[in-house]
C-alpha cells in the first residue's frame, strides 16, 4: 500500500465517498463483454448451482442445476454454458490484421478484437478456473461421455483463468479489482472483495453515505452476496426446500416443472441484483478515458486469444494439471516481467499513479530552466548529439549521479544525471544529458529536446524492453528440477501426484468422479 493510496482511503472514509486513485482507465473495456455471475453449492468442490450470463444488460440468461450433486446435471449445465460462451468467443474470430514480426521480415495474423469475460470478484475467477479444471479433461467417448463442447469450454475457461494471472491483461476481469484500481474506498481490502459494498462507496444511493451504503450491502437479507458463495440463510430457508421439492416431484411432470420454476425464481432473485451492479460498475469505469498504453496491452490479449484459438483449431490438448519445472519457471518469469512493465506503464499513463513513485523518490517533476539543444559531444570516435538541460525541482531528488532517467513525455529518450546541486529555497537543480529519440543527425528536430519553461517528469522507471530470461529445454532440465513446483500449501502423497510432464493417465480419466 503506497502512502498516496492510503491517504486516499483516509480521505474516502472522512468524505463518506470513494476517492479517485487514477485519472485514466487502466484496463480495456469491450463494448460487448460477457458478464458471468456464478453461484456454487455450499460444501461441494466447486459444484455450479447457477449462473447469470450474457453480453448486454438486457440479455441475461439464467442457467441452473436443479440437483447440484447430480453429475449428469452438472455436465448438462456445462454444455449449456458452453452453448453461450463458445458462440460468444467465435464471434470475435471474424477479422484479422497482419502484424510484422522478426523486424519486418515476416508477418503473422491476429484477431482485430477479442472476447472479454467479467465476473464480480476474484472468487468468481477461481470458480471459472476450477470449472475449467473439472471439464477440460472430460472425454466425449467411453464410459462417461460428455457433450463435445464440455472439454472445449474447459480449455477456454482455463485459458481465461491463466490470462487473469497476467498483470495488465483485460481478458478476464474481476470487477471489484477493476474498480479498486481506480477508486479508494473507505474500507479495508477484505471488505473490498464484496462488490455491492465497493459500489456503495463509489456510487452511494441518494441519501446514504459510502459507509452506510456499504453496511447495507453487507446484510444478505437486503443485498444478496455477489457469489459464488451463497448466503447460508438463503440456503437453509429457500434453496434447500426448493431443491427438495424438485427432487420430490419425481416423475410428476407438472410438479417438476413448477418446482423447477420456483428454483429458477429463487436463484434469479439472488443473482439479479449482482447482475445490475456489474453493468453499473462497468458504466462507471467506461466513463474514465482510457490510458495511452491500454490499447497496447489489449493487443497482447488479442495475441493470446489468437494463439489459443489456433491451438484449439489444431486439435491441441488440454492444459496440463500442473506445469513442469521449466514451464513453471518460464511462466513465473513472464508474469514478473509483465508486473513490472504494467506498473511502469500505468505510471507513464497517469500522473496520479506517477505521484506514488514521486513520493517514493523514484520520480520528480521540475521546470526546465536551461537548455542546450545543440550540444555535441566530440570526445569519442565520431561526434554525437548530446543536448543538456537543467531542471529545477522542489521535490527531493534521490537519484545518484550517472543514473539514467526517463520522461513519460519522451519515453524513447534517456537522460543521464550529470550534476545535482542544492539551490535556494530548498530547491534542487539537476543537469541532465540527453540521448536517443532525436533522430540520427547532429541537430535535434523541434520538440525532441525539452524547452525552457517546460514542466517535466523524470523517473527511474523505464518502459523499455526487458530481456527475456534463458531457460533450459525440458529435456535438459536436471532431475532435481523435474518435479512439479512445490508451492502447494498441502502436499499430497507423492504416489497420488501425477508426473508433471508427459501424459498423466489420471488427466484424461473419464471415470474421474465429480461429486
Amino acid at each position: 500500500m503506497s502512502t498516496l493510496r492510503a491517504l486516499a482511503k483516509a480521505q474516502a472514509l472522512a468524505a463518506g465517498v470513494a476517492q479517485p486513485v487514477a485519472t485514466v482507465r487502466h484496463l480495456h473495456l469491450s463494448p460487448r463483454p460477457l458478464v458471468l455471475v456464478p453461484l456454487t453449492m455450499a460444501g461441494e468442490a466447486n459444484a455450479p448451482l447457477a449462473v447469470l450470463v450474457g453480453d448486454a444488460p438486457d440479455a441475461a440468461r439464467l442457467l441452473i442445476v436443479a440437483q447440484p450433486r447430480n453429475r449428469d446435471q452438472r455436465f448438462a449445465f456445462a454444455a449449456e454454458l458452453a452453448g453461450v460462451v463458445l458462440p460468444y468467443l467465435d464471434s470475435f474470430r471474424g477479422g484479422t490484421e497482419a502484424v510484422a514480426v522478426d523486424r519486418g521480415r515476416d508477418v503473422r495474423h491476429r484477431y482485430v478484437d477479442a472476447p472479454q469475460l467479467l465476473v464480480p470478484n476474484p472468487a468468481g475467477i477461481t470458480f471459472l478456473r476450477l470449472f475449467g479444471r473439472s471439464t477440460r479433461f472430460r472425454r466425449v467417448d467411453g464410459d462417461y461421455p460428455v457433450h463435445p463442447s464440455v472439454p472445449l469450454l474447459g480449455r477456454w475457461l482455463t485459458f481465461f483463468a491463466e490470462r487473469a494471472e497476467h498483470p495488465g491483461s483485460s481478458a478476464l476481469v474481476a470487477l471489484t479489482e477493476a474498480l479498486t484500481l481506480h477508486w479508494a474506498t473507505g474500507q479495508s481490502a477484505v471488505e473490498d472483495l464484496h462488490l455491492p459494498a465497493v459500489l456503495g462507496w463509489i456510487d452511494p444511493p441518494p441519501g446514504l453515505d459510502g459507509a452506510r451504503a456499504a453496511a447495507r450491502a453487507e446484510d444478505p437479507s437486503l443485498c444478496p452476496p455477489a457469489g459464488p458463495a451463497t448466503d447460508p440463510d438463503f440456503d437453509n430457508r429457500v434453496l434447500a426446500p426448493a431443491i427438495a421439492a424438485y427432487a420430490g416431484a419425481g416423475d410428476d411432470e407438472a410438479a417438476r416443472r413448477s418446482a423447477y420454476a420456483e428454483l429458477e425464481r429463487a436463484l434469479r432473485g439472488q443473482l439479479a441484483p449482482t447482475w445490475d451492479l456489474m453493468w453499473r460498475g462497468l458504466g462507471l469505469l467506461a466513463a474514465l478515458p482510457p490510458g495511452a498504453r491500454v490499447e497496447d496491452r489489449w493487443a497482447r490479449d488479442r495475441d493470446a486469444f489468437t494463439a489459443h484459438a489456433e491451438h484449439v483449431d489444431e486439435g491441441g490438448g488440454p492444459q496440463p494439471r500442473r506445469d513442469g519445472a521449466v514451464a513453471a519457471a518460464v511462466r513465473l518469469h513472464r508474469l514478473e516481467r509483465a508486473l513490472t512493465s504494467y506498473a511502469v506503464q500505468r505510471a507513464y499513463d497517469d500522473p496520479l499513479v506517477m505521484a506514488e513513485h514521486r513520493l517514493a523518490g523514484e520520480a520528480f517533476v521540475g521546470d526546465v530552466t536551461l537548455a542546450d539543444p545543440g550540444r555535441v559531444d566530440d570526445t569519442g570516435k565520431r561526434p554525437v548529439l548530446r543536448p543538456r538541460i537543467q531542471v529545477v525541482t522542489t521535490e527531493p531528488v534521490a537519484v545518484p549521479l550517472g543514473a539514467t532517467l526517463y520522461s513519460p513525455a519522451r519515453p524513447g529518450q534517456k537522460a543521464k544525471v550529470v550534476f545535482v546541486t542544492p539551490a535556494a529555497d530548498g530547491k534542487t537543480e539537476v543537469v541532465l544529458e540527453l540521448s536517443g529519440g532525436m533522430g540520427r543527425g547532429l541537430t535535434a528536430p523541434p520538440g525532441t529536446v525539452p524547452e525552457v519553461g517546460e514542466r517535466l517528469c523524470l523517473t527511474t522507471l523505464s518502459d523499455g524492453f526487458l530481456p527475456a530470461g534463458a531457460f533450459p529445454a525440458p529435456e535438459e532440465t536436471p532431475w532435481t528440477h523435474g518435479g512439479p513446483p512445490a508451492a502447494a500449501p498441502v502436499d499430497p502423497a507423492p504416489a497420488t501426484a501425477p508426473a508433471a510432464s508427459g501424459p498423466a493417465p489420471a488427466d484424461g480419466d473419464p471415470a474421474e468422479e465429480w461429486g
Partner: protein
Amino acid sequence: MTSTAQRLAEIRGGKPPRRHNARTIAALTGNPGCDRRAVLDSAGADKPALAEQVGFPARFGQSRFAITRGNAFEAQVKADGGAELLRLVAERLGVDPGGPGTWTDLGADDRPGGPDQPDRAERSRAALAAAAPAARGRAHLPTGEAPTAEPQTGEAQTGDAPTSGEPAALFDHPLLSLDVAGRRVHLEPDLVAARLAGRFHVVEIKSFPVIDGQADPGKVAAAAVQSAVYVLALRELLAAEGHDPSLVSSDVVLVCPRDFANQPVASLVDVRKQLLVLRRQLDRMARVDDLLARVPANFTADPAADPDHLRRALSSVPARYAPDCLAACELAYFCRHEARAETTALGRPVREALGGVADVAEVLALAAGEHPGAPEQAEAAALLRAAARLRADALTGRPS
C-alpha cells in the same frame, strides 16, 4: 468458587459459561492483543447474544448443505471401523500399520453437555493413556516438550519406534480438555487420534477439496490451528499420566476429498508454529487476574442487560479491532463501528503507510499542514503533507 471465578461468572451474567470447542479455542489465537475478547472468552460470555443485543449481530451462519456434505464425507472416511482411514494415514506417514487396527469410538452416543460427560472424559483418558506406547518407547524419545526438535515428516519412524507387535489403534471422538483462563474446558473434537508406529497423530477430516495438490490456504490454516488445539490437549493428557508428551506428533494428518470426487486424500500439516501461538495465548489467559485488573469493577457482558449499558460496558474495555476480526470474532461489527474513525479499520498496511497515525481526522489534519503534529510524528507529518500535495497536484491536472 474463587473470587476470580466469581467475578467471571458475574461478568457473563451468572449463566453457565459458553462451551468451547476447538474452533472457538482456535479463534483465540486470532487477535491475541485484544483485551475485550480475552476477558469475554475467559468468562465464557455468550458473544453471539451479546452482539445481537448491542445491535451488531454476527453473521456466522452455516449452510445446511455444507453440514450435510461434511457429515457424509466423514462417515464415508470412517466406514468399516476406519480401515480405509488407517490405510491412508499409514501410507501418508510412510509407516507400517502392523495389521488391522483397532477402532474405539469414545463418544458415539452422548451429546455435548450430556450427564455422562465426566465419565466420558474419564473413559477417554483411560483409553488413550493405556494406548500410549509402553515405557520402553520413552528411552529414545526426547523428554519434555521440545517442539522444535520434533522429527520431521516421514522420518524413518518404522526403524526405531516400537512398532512390532503393536497394531495401530484409532480413537474416534475422544473427549479432551484444556485449561482456559483457569477453567477446565472440555473439547468435543471431531478428530481421530491414531496411534501407530509408536506415536499418536491427530487426524482431522475436512470436506474442503484438495485439487491438484492445492487447497484453499485459508481453510488449511484454520484446520491447522484447530488441530494444534487437539495436539496440545492430547499432549497434556499423556503428560498428566506420566508419559512423554512428545509421543503426540506435531505433524497432523488432514484427510480431505481429492479433486472433484469423494475419494479421500491424506496430507501432513506441521503445526509447530500454531502450537507456540496457542500456548502463548493460553498462558496469557491463565493470568486472568492481570486481565481482570484492567477491567472496570462493574463490567458486565450479560446479554440480558440493557443495550445502552452493554455498549458502554464493552467500550470500557480496550479492543484492538482489525479487519481480520470480521472472520473470527462475533463482536466484529460492533468493534468495527467503534473503530470507524481509526486508520486500523482500513487495515494494518494502510495504517502503516500512513506513518502509523491512529486517527483518520489526525491524518487529514497533518496532511493538510493544519498543525505540525507531535515531535515523534514529524516524519509521518512530512510524508503525509508531501502525499497530499502530490495527490492534489495530479488531480487538478497540473502537467507532470
